[in-house]
């Protein structure tokens, strides 16, 4: 009886979700409140968590709550610690949530909010959360080993090396694209630049304090650091207005690029406790705080969506990024729907902290649902801005010009009516000299967040403060990702190069470290520079490349899970992994193919290069080049990007081949062949292997 009552509650929730989805999808011509989107998303998440995730846990992979986890088997109080599930949820969420779910939906909003919303909601339920959960399961059953090791053990040595190589390339692209977002947000913005610069001395001060004065006490010093950051924002406004200091911090994209490259190099060879760790603490707490504040803000403000449900740019002619809805929308929004990078976290620290297999569903599946919710909030923040302002902010200067008048005229022509006055007024409200062509997602999100925060705290007078707060919060965790990523990339590179020159593997050698760091910084710096000087804004080229690489890593991870299911003799349930894999392969291979060969030079690298070569033959100079030598450089860049795309496609196609081979081999055995750590029963539990209960 009680279970029937409970079922009725879930059915009611499903009906509410369906009604909210229908309201958002079917409303035409009338304004929709953002809360409809939020309600639709949350209802679908809860129903999926209650039914599909439970099915995945009990039936598809078969979690066993009597089985000892690595945290219990190897408990050392350090790396392996059985951890309360809510505490672990916080750890896992903080590790997976970064800039991705905030930026992707903002860029995708150029097609309207509806396709993005549907992909975020259904992508996470059927693909993203499935991947995070299954990889967590596979890794936990194998002593918390990493994705590279898992692929090597279950698929073979060669696919293992290929997967590692792919992961390194993805890392480089991610670092370049993240750095590009920071450059785009800080260019010609003395307020933003001085605030972000102030984080360096603040973090170093915190680092010294935690090292020598009160080691191991993070709380108090983080609070002081946070207060100093808020002061830095306020002082930043004065700095921007100062006739002496304003110009010092007014830097263009190329200057910021060189500063960032230099910074990346220095920061990643400094001791971690001095700069990286303290800034990581600040950025982690600020990130969680800002996400919570954004959620509260959206509920309190309940804003109306101003962006149409669908725009004319679904045909692929949009100014923010090029390419049609299929496949490029599903590439543009990676994090928030499905993100391959999470497979590295789900096979990293989290499986070593899990106290019982029954909590995998909450941590793996639930954690990803939470990230998806962050993406929904970013989509809302981008969609409550006046569409004309959105397009003026996100279109390249080559398309809309550099003045408020030209931008307003072009954007209005597209059907998003906006006046030059509104553009200059918005810039003044947020304390910037201009908001035109501030591509990259971060400034747009910051305008949206500033509107939400100002509506609940401070009013319009606080817009500029909140705008720079949002920029600071994004820049802070992107910079942390850049120097942590450079370090990680350096280790990967030393590992890879060590196969050929053993001396380079020695991480104790200063020369080897500096060389590997320089190579790593040089690699992402090359792409960053290329993106910054691109007249179409760089994001146009690199965001799709980033999306393709990230989704391909997801496909690799899901193929691993599929192989493991076959090896466990659970192939009849393997469709749960195969379905999202097939979709990801379809999207990424189509997108990769179009990035190579599409007839539109804005989409296809080779078409673009061919056009430039013809121009060179005619002796003509085309932007961004200013001379024939620079034309050659742009052509080389096109070939490098095309080569990278080919490499990504090679990685994923070879993994497809190896995974199918492994599945066929598994089918020939009548016994399970998965290489799990042998079963060990939880001490003090009775000998039965019932499925996981209904609890969280």
């Amino acid at each position, binding site marked *: 009886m009680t279970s029937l009552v409970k079922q009725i509650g879930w059915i009611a929730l499903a009906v509410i979700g369906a009604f909210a989805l229908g309201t958002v999808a079917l409303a035409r011509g009338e304004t929709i409140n953002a809360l409809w989107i939020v309600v639709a998303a949350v209802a679908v998440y809860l129903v999926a968590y209650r039914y599909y995730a439970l099915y995945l846990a009990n039936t598809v992979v078969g979690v066993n709550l009597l089985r000892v986890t690595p945290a219990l088997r190897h*408990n*050392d*109080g*350090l*790396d392996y*610690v059985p*951890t*309360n599930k*809510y*505490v*672990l949820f*916080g*750890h896992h969420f*903080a*590790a*997976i*949530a*970064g*800039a*991705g779910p905030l930026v992707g939906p903002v860029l995708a909003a150029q097609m309207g909010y509806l396709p993005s919303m549907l992909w975020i909601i259904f992508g996470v339920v059927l693909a993203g959360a499935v991947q995070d959960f299954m990889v967590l399961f596979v890794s936990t059953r194998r002593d918390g080993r990493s994705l590279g090791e898992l692929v090597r053990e279950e698929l073979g040595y060669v696919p293992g090396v290929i997967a590692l190589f792919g992961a390194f390339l993805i*890392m480089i692209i*991610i670092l370049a694209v*993240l750095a590009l977002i920071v450059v785009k947000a800080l260019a010609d913005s003395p307020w933003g630049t001085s605030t972000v610069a102030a984080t360096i001395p603040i973090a170093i001060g915190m680092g010294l304090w*935690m*090292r020598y004065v009160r*080691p*191991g006490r*993070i*709380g108090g010093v983080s609070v002081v650091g946070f207060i100093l950051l808020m002061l830095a924002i306020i002082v930043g406004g004065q700095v921007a207005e100062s006739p002496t200091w304003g110009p010092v911090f007014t830097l263009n994209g190329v200057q910021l690029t060189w500063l960032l490259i230099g910074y990346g190099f220095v920061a990643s060879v400094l001791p*971690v*406790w001095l700069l*990286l*760790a303290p800034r*990581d*603490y600040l950025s*982690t*707490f600020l990130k*969680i705080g800002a996400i919570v504040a954004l959620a509260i803000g959206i509920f309190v403000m309940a804003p109306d969506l101003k962006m149409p449900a669908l725009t004319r740019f679904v045909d692929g002619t949009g100014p923010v990024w090029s390419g049609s809805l299929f496949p490029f929308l599903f590439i543009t929004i*990676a*994090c928030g729907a499905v*993100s391959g*990078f*999470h497979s*590295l*976290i789900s096979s*990293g*620290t989290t499986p070593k*902290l899990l106290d019982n297999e029954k909590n995998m569903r909450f941590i793996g599946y639930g954690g990803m649902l939470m990230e998806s919710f962050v993406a929904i909030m970013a989509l809302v923040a981008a969609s409550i801005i006046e569409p004309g302002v959105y397009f003026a902010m996100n279109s390249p200067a080559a398309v809309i010009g550099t003045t408020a008048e030209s931008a307003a005229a072009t954007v209005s022509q597209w059907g998003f009516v906006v006046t030059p006055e509104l553009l200059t007024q918005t810039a003044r409200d947020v304390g910037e000299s201009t908001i035109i062509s501030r591509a990259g997602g971060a400034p747009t999100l910051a305008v949206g967040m500033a509107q939400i925060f100002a509506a609940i705290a401070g009013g319009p007078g606080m817009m500029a403060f909140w705008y720079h707060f949002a920029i600071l919060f994004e820049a802070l965790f992107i910079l*942390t*990702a850049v120097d*942590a*990523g450079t*370090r*990680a*990339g350096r*280790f*990967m590179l030393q*590992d890879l190069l060590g196969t050929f020159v053993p001396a380079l593997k020695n991480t104790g050698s200063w020369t080897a470290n500096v060389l590997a760091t320089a190579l790593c910084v040089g690699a992402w710096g090359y792409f960053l520079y290329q993106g910054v000087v691109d007249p179409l804004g760089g994001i146009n080229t690199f965001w799709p490349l*980033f999306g393709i690489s*990230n989704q391909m890593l997801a496909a690799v991870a899901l193929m691993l899970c599929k192989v493991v299911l076959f090896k466990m003799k659970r192939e009849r349930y393997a469709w749960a992994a195969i379905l999202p894999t097939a979709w990801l392969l379809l999207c990424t291979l189509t997108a990769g193919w179009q990035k190579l060969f599409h007839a539109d030079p804005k989409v296809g690298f080779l078409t673009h290069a061919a056009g430039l070569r013809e121009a060179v033959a005619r002796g003509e100079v085309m932007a961004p080049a200013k001379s024939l030598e620079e034309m050659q450089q742009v052509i080389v860049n096109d070939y490098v990007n095309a080569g990278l795309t080919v490499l990504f496609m090679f990685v994923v196609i070879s993994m497809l081949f190896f995974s199918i081979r492994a599945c066929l081999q598994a089918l020939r055995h009548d016994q399970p062949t998965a290489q799990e750590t042998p079963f060990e029963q939880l001490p003090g539990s009775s000998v039965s292997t019932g499925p996981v209960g209904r609890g969280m």
Partner: protein
Amino acid sequence: MHEQLKAFVRGLRQTAYLMVGVPDYDGYLDHMRRAHPDRKPMSRAEFFRERQAARYGGGNGRCC
């Protein structure tokens, strides 16, 4: 009620610390007392430094 509140605050504190890669120090001491009573556990400062080095020393990437 008071006890529950204290447990909640302790949980929040543990969550915040683990978010930045530092597990519970008291938990570590407990573990050392139970499993390795013969060994001297690290001091809070040593524990903190060891965890910092472990979080950023290896090839652990960060998410996008």
